[in-house]
């Protein structure tokens, strides 16, 4: 039973030998395991899927590895920000990794994802590399947006990731537009528009939902409810924090977002539903360990007990670790090895990104248009700095 059957989904490093799967383990690498989600799904105007989820040891290991990679990346970004290598905004996703991973497990790269500014891990899940992420965060030319976007504007169009948006709520109509195009082109794929509990009250969300329901667009709205919109708790921002019900005539599902298998099950269910019937809302009950952004300590509006409580009871990586151990798919030291390796990978990527140069000054004037018709563009002093837009 080849140990190299371990799926290495997020790393660009070549597949290596892993002594994870014991030759005489009772659990084969291809055999299915059925796991129950932490809690049953709650449906709004829909019969929820079963809470029994099928998975395999390989998949569970990949979940563990990929989530650990995301966790490490975000924590490393924290340090880079504090050492001023990352500037401006930096919104970290640690705690929410199971949403990015569970979603990917249920869909293909032909499906589309769009999200707001907490986008580093979503991009990684869509096939972005660590170097691309760190380089972008540090404003270097090897970044996924060549250093011109920054933390909030990661993109990977060729694998169905449409950004990375800074205006709260705007990504939802955009996501419904992606779904419109998929239906128009008869592609049989769906779009996931991710938004937070803060964005859930945006008017344009309801405008887009109305149109999506009228036109039966394959749009899945995913509310990543981490219970705080910046410093405002959900009970202070929303008269009705039951975001999965907010669609009114659009069905919804409430999901434990910290359970990667629940996320996978719900996403699979939603995709099947949306392709046949139009929009559906998924509310992912999740949590972010960091504050809203690096300028927010995250402890003025919530207690440290709450944060550590969630870490102890609901951490998505710990959940999978327990599963792997209890099903004897891996040992404690196997998992520690993975974590060490992930750490090393992240450190290597950071070193590589640090070496990378900032964009050439001429890049100030590139990509303003696809077709610039040779018009002039100007720098701060147009008598000194001018460019022709090709």
């Amino acid at each position, binding site marked *: 039973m080849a140990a190299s059957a371990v799926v290495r989904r997020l790393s660009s490093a070549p597949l290596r030998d892993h002594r994870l799967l014991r030759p005489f383990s009772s659990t084969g690498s291809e055999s299915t395991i059925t796991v129950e989600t932490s809690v049953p799904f709650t449906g709004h105007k829909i019969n929820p899927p079963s809470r029994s989820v099928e998975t395999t040891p390989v998949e569970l290991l990949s979940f563990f590895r990929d989530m650990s990679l995301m966790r490490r990346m975000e924590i490393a970004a924290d340090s880079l920000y504090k050492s001023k290598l990352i500037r401006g905004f930096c919104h970290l996703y640690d705690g929410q990794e199971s949403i990015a991973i569970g979603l990917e497990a249920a869909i293909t790269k032909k499906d*589309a994802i*769009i999200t707001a500014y907490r986008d580093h891990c979503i991009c990684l899940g869509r096939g972005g590399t660590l170097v691309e992420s760190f380089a972008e965060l540090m404003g270097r030319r090897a970044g996924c*947006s*060549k*250093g*011109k*976007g920054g933390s909030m*504007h990661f*993109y*990977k*169009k060729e694998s169905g990731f*449409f*950004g*990375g*948006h*800074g*205006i709260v709520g*705007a990504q*939802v*109509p*955009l*996501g*419904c*537009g*992606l*779904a*419109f*195009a*998929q239906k*128009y*082109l008869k592609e049989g794929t769906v779009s996931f528009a991710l938004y937070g509990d803060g964005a859930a009250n945006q*008017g*344009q969300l*309801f*405008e*887009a939902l*109305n*149109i999506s329901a*009228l*036109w039966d667009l394959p749009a899945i709205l995913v509310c990543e409810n981490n219970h705080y919109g910046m410093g405002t708790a959900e009970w202070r921002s929303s008269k009705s924090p039951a975001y999965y019900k907010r669609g009114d005539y659009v069905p919804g599902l409430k999901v434990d977002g910290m359970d990667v298998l629940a996320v996978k099950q719900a996403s699979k269910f939603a995709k099947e539903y949306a392709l046949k019937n139009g929009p559906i809302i998924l509310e992912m009950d999740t949590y972010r360990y960091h504050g809203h952004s690096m300028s927010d300590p995250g402890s003025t509006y919530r207690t440290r007990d709450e944060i550590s409580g969630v870490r102890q009871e609901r951490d998505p990586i710990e959940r999978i670790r327990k599963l792997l151990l209890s099903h004897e798919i891996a040992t404690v030291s196997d998992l520690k090895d993975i974590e060490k390796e992930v750490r090393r990978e992240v450190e290597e990527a950071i070193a590589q990104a640090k070496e990378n140069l900032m964009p050439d000054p001429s890049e100030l004037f*590139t*990509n*303003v*248009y*696809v*077709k*610039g*018709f040779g*018009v*002039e*563009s100007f720098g701060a002093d*147009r*008598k000194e700095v001018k460019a022709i837009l090709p």
Partner: protein
Amino acid sequence: MLGIVRRKVGCEVFSAMKFSLALRKVLPTGSALPMNYSTATKEITVREALNSALDEEMSADPKVFLMGEEVGEYQGAYKISKGLLEKYGPDRVLDTPITEAGFAGIGVGAAYYGLRPVVEFMTFNFSLQAIDHIINSAAKSNYMSAGQISVPIVFRGPNGAAAGVGAQHSQCFAAWYAHVPGLKVLTPYSAEDARGLLKAAIRDPDPVVFLENELLYGESFPVSAEVLDSSFCLPIGKAKIEREGKHVTITAYSKMVGYALQAAEILSKEGISAEVINLRSIRPLDRATINASVRKTNRLVTVEEGFPQHGVGAEIGMSVVEESFEYLDAPVERIAGADVPMPYAANLERMAVPQVDNIVHAAKRACYRSVPLAATA
């Protein structure tokens, strides 16, 4: 004297013939040059021009679709999309609810994916509800994504003052949108402009704000066979010299081009030969044509319907000061809408929008033919 103007404009070389006033159906907008000879060219309204352009581009590219309020079954609030629903079906001509933020965002998302939406705002006053999508979701995406996400969308609809529609329905947004890098802003005047520029806009890979004018929809203009051909296209970023002149340059866009041409006619009777430039494109602005003209005439009057402060004329005046200062023989004159919200009463409304007289007076001031009077309160 023939009114034939031959200009090489990017990909197209065409000739424009000017006819006498008698041929204008609604408002007299052409110059009164005697008609020496003319081929029997057709006349079409701006409405017909826009409709045929939409029709042809939708026919040529299945990715083009039209979306907006009343564009389908109602045949278009101003009948611009007449017949299109019947021809292309409800999958490509979509009636939306009255939710500009929602449908503009959906349009931009569809453009991200690779479709070519034409999003209609019933008037550009309503585009304010969607302006975040036009600017932050559309204009900036190609740049922020370093070229990964291009947005081949057209936002079109009537812009500026109509007649008696009051303050909330009369604003000109040319300056607002032209302010933003990443957008292209076009302002057709004639039927030829309407056809050529709309086709160019739809074919363009970048987001285009296409500012029409309600009062021009019903106006007829002569068009050559070339203009009527389905491959006809005008270049973006090139102004047109509607009337050549020697003494003063008058720049204008949209409806004001017609007024400027009338003013030029009046001025010619007083010995002032005015060169009228139809800007056609506010962004990119054809600084080369404007400056070349001012270097020839040495005097400039900018005309626009919109509010004066931070307007299109301000940019043109500054451009001329920057590039052709030594050529100016007089200060740049600026004619614009009054600096007040649009009033309803007919007499006040008339004062709030530039009239032909205003343009004539400004041109005379630039030619030192009259002493400027202080405005009365």
